[in-house]
């Protein structure tokens, strides 16, 4: 069974600074997908960034980037130039594909302070 671990229940950062959220996972699969989702108080789960396991290159989406270390089974999220609107719960998630479970970590509550 796959597991996803987020070891930081809560984090805070000052506006405009950079913060890194950590995520590790455990799987015996070689092909899979990793995601970071953001859930603000409005409760909508918003896809922040995705990574295909077969790709060596780390994914980036504007201010968001990941450090994907496949051998170490690590998938951290870096948020640059943090904005107040980044305040949310962030979930790391793993799946083998659409007919398999999307397994979430317990989440990291990120607060961006003015």
């Amino acid at each position, binding site marked *: 069974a796959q597991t996803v671990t987020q070891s930081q229940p809560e984090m805070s950062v000052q506006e405009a600074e950079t913060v890194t959220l950590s995520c590790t996972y455990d799987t015996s699969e070689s092909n899979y997908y990793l995601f970071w989702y953001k859930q603000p108080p409005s409760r909508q*789960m918003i*896809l922040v960034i995705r990574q295909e396991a077969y790709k060596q290159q780390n994914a980036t989406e504007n201010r968001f980037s990941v450090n994907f270390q496949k051998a170490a089974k690590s998938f951290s999220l870096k948020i640059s130039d943090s904005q107040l609107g980044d305040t949310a719960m962030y*979930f790391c998630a793993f799946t083998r*594909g659409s007919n398999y479970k999307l397994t979430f970590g317990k989440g990291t509550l990120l607060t961006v302070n003015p």
Partner: protein
Amino acid sequence: DTEVTQTPKHLVMGMTNKKSLKCEQHMGHRAMYWYKQKAKKPPELMFVYSYEKLSINESVPSRFSPECPNSSLLNLHLHALQPEDSALYLCASSQVVVVANRNNYGYTFGSGTRLTVV
């Protein structure tokens, strides 16, 4: 259209009531999902539909009955619920991924139905 629409947004029901949650998407996704989320917890998978057929049931009690009438619509029928079933119910959709090295794969979530059982 890049959205998953869920209705109603809020629902209060008694333990003897029958109600339904609705989820709709028009992105051509052929996989649809129901998740249950308790406060300050991650979502937990309930059901997966692939090409309108139930492919995963995560041992959900029979008081929850899913239905996928067509490729755009997913329902969750509720009957004789318990107060502990109160939660946020999230619907999601995705492409059906046959080979796990396909690009541009991701799940789109709706904003959920906040269910309270009294």
